[in-house]
């Protein structure tokens, strides 16, 4: 009985995973449909935001025109001559490249001509345009190599997380972004030029650093528009990622020249009223969720430059199979843990610790640039660990109780058997020898003996009903399936023939039966049960219809390469119709069983009268069927 308990546990082990798998499946499906995107994006932003601060970038400086500056200037939009003066002034400090993050397709007088002139003379100046509809052209006559677009990609929740490096405009010309233009010029001084990627020819590359393009399913994105060349923005962390010099500071020389020398200088308007702002929650700034356009450009440019020069990581993510594998693995971990037999408090503490651990791992990986799915993973793990836990506990407790009950029954009987029953047996034997003991005493003692044994039988049957490794016959007889096949069949035969309700058994005078060893390699418990039922059915067939049967021949053994079960009787049917009924009944099930076993089943008439039912199957079955 002990082995069948382990088998039970193992079976529930495999089948017990079933409730947990749909949950994992649902999480995966939900992610594939994109339901987790907003949460994962926010998780990414939160992760990026809470990283330890990086030192202020030494490559990019922002010259900002603030609200106060505009009020001091007294004019908006800024007139051309003002911009022109500003640019010339900045250029005196010998920056590597200047980027003007102000759209100027329409002339703003006075001084627009000056402005255009300045653009022509300063060959380290890059201006901007927008190429995606509605497109905004750059200032007139600017050479293409010094124009970069600033089109920003918004995710479905309105936040910016990606930087568009290159795209085709509506005239099918391929254009480079502001980011790339500035990075190009800056990195050219360090000897790095923009080339096509080696690993991925479509990617952009500066020296050893390849900017792996964003794909529709990168990270948590699901079917995003990955047109053009995009990358995720690895925002520079900390409250002061870049030096910001206001217009006033510039006029009053309230800055150090090194902040402009040999750097990328971005000029833009940060005044609140102009509202050149974007949503991004990944930056730890004054205004939560908002960042000015020029600062966004700074982050985008800075990440490319730092990647190429200082090996600062860009944001990478696992391939799709890796991400889903991670989610499924944690889901399975949740299932496995739910089956642990520990106290509830320890268990939940463990779950919480593991979830925190998962978050810590994800955070750690993010700091070195790997973006892995954390929300769906935690959800799958937590749901399995928590939601399924109560049901496993109940199952487990049920099983414990069953085991306890069985052990109690066994102990009880063995105690009765070893003490009182033994004494009773000795008593009976002595009483039957003593010459003067009354007969009634012997009878009563005998009855007592039978009754006590009967109790054990009853308890035994009760328990076995719940064991799946048994065959239950009519008349409440339970037969274990874990014994040799021929012994099990013998029990079936023995019990079926004792049943009172079959009239034809009474006339049988001789039972010729052979129960010999049968090869049962590859037979599952279910198969054995079905074979047992087949024998029962064949015998019932005899019992019900074989009128006047005097001899019953049963053979269950291995003949050569086949196992044979054969039931032959010499009963009469009253008429041919009854004989037909005999042959028609139960044949369907027997045929199915025969084909499962790759054998044959036959029920035929015998001469002069009688019926033979025979099931035959080969000992060596093909591997394919053996799984059934």
């Amino acid at each position, binding site marked *: 009985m002990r082995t069948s308990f382990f088998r039970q546990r193992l079976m529930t082990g495999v089948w017990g995973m079933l409730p947990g798998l749909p949950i994992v499946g649902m999480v995966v499906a939900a992610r594939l449909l994109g339901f987790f995107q907003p949460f994962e994006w926010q998780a990414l932003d939160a992760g990026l935001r809470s990283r330890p601060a990086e030192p202020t970038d030494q490559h990019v400086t922002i010259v900002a025109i603030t609200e106060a500056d505009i009020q001091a200037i007294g004019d908006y939009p800024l007139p051309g001559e003002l911009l022109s003066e500003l640019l010339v002034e900045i250029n005196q400090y010998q920056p590597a490249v200047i980027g003007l993050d102000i759209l100027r397709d329409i002339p703003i007088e006075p001084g627009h001509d000056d402005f255009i002139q300045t653009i022509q003379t300063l060959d380290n100046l890059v201006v901007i345009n927008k190429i995606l509809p509605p497109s905004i052209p750059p200032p007139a006559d600017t050479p293409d190599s010094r124009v970069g677009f600033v089109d920003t990609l918004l995710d479905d929740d309105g936040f910016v997380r990606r930087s568009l490096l290159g795209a085709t405009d509506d005239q099918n010309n391929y254009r480079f972004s502001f980011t790339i233009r500035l990075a190009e010029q800056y990195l050219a001084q360090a000897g790095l030029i923009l080339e096509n990627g080696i690993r991925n020819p479509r990617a952009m590359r500066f020296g050893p650093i390849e900017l792996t393009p964003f794909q529709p399913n990168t990270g948590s994105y699901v079917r995003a528009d990955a047109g053009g060349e995009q990358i995720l923005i690895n925002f520079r962390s900390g409250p002061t990622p870049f030096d910001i010099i206001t217009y006033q500071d510039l006029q009053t020389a309230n800055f150090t020249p090194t902040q402009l020398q040999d750097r990328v200088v971005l000029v833009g308007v940060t005044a609140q009223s102009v509202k050149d702002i974007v949503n991004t929650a990944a930056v730890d700034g004054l205004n939560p969720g908002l960042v000015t356009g020029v600062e966004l450009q700074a982050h985008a440019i800075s990440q490319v430059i730092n990647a190429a020069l200082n090996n600062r990581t860009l944001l990478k993510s696992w391939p799709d199979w890796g991400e889903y594998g991670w989610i499924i693995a944690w889901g399975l971990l949740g299932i496995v843990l739910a089956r642990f037999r520990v106290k509830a408090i320890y268990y939940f503490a463990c779950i919480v610790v593991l979830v925190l651990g998962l978050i810590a791992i994800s955070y750690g990986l993010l700091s070195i640039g790997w973006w892995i799915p954390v929300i769906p993973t935690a959800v799958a793990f937590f749901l399995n660990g928590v939601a399924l836990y109560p049901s496993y506990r109940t199952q487990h407790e049920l099983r414990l109780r069953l085991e306890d009950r069985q052990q109690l029954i066994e102990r009880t009987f063995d105690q009765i058997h070893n003490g009182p029953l033994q004494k009773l*047996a000795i008593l009976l034997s002595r009483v039957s020898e003593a010459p003067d003991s009354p007969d009634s005493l012997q009878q009563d*003692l005998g009855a007592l003996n039978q009754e006590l044994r009967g109790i054990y039988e009853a308890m035994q049957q009760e328990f076995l009903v719940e064991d799946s490794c048994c065959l239950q016959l009519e008349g409440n007889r339970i037969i274990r399936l874990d014994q040799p096949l*021929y012994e099990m069949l013998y029990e079936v035969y023995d019990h079926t023939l004792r049943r009172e309700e079959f009239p034809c058994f009474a006339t049988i005078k001789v039972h*010729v039966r052979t129960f010999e060893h049968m090869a049962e390699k590859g037979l599952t418990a279910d198969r054995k049960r079905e074979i047992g039922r087949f024998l029962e059915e064949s015998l019932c067939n005899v019992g019900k219809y074989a009128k006047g049967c005097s001899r019953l021949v049963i053979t269950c053994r291995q003949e050569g390469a086949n196992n044979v079960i054969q039931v032959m009787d010499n009963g009469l049917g009253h008429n041919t119709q009854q004989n037909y009924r005999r042959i028609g009944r139960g044949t369907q099930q027997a045929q199915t069983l025969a084909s499962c076993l790759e054998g044959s089943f036959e029920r035929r008439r015998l001469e002069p009268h009688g019926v033979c039912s025979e099931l035959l199957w080969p000992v060596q079955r093909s591997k394919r069927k053996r799984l059934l």
Partner: protein
Amino acid sequence: MSTTSALCPNLIVIVDDHEAVLAGTLSLLKTEYPKTTFLTAQDAQSAKETIQNAQPELTIMDLSIPDHAKAPAQTEVGIQLLRSLMTDYPQLNFVVQSAHVRSLVRLKPAIEMHQGGFTISDKSAPMREMLTKVDWALQGLVYTPREMRVKLEVKPEWLEVLRLAFQDGLQDKTIAEKMCISERTVRHYWTRVQDALGVYPDEGKNMRIQTEIRARQEGLLD
């Protein structure tokens, strides 16, 4: 019945976990078989070892025994032990002390295939009967309680032996030749079919003739 048997086995092993019963059985058997050595075992493991080392002619065993000392006694353990002993020692004779017919019914096919004697004795029966069963087992006979023999069950080989013996009047040696089996197997079939027909040694009666009478009564010969 004489107080000492004509048979003289060398070695008998008794397996029982009840001290009192063991002592009683031992003393009785020592009177019956004065020249025999007796070994005892009180659990399945030590029984296996003892039988392996000693190679007895007869094993008397209780079905309700523990697997090893200090374990609880269970009928299942006895049945498993019996099964493995019957496989390992086909010639060993057995006396099984149990009234647990339900469990023993499972072993009926194995008992039939077993070469040695096999008798089942009831502990609540008088001691005399136990001695008879021991004697029959040593002779290689089979005895099963009546509850196990409600209906007449025979194997085709036994019918063949009966037919050749009683219809054709052949001797064992000739039967063996005709059936292409050994004489020993023929004797083996005799013991089994006699148990099925309920024919046992009785003073003043010829067993073979008794067998023929019973066989005709049951309609096995015509």
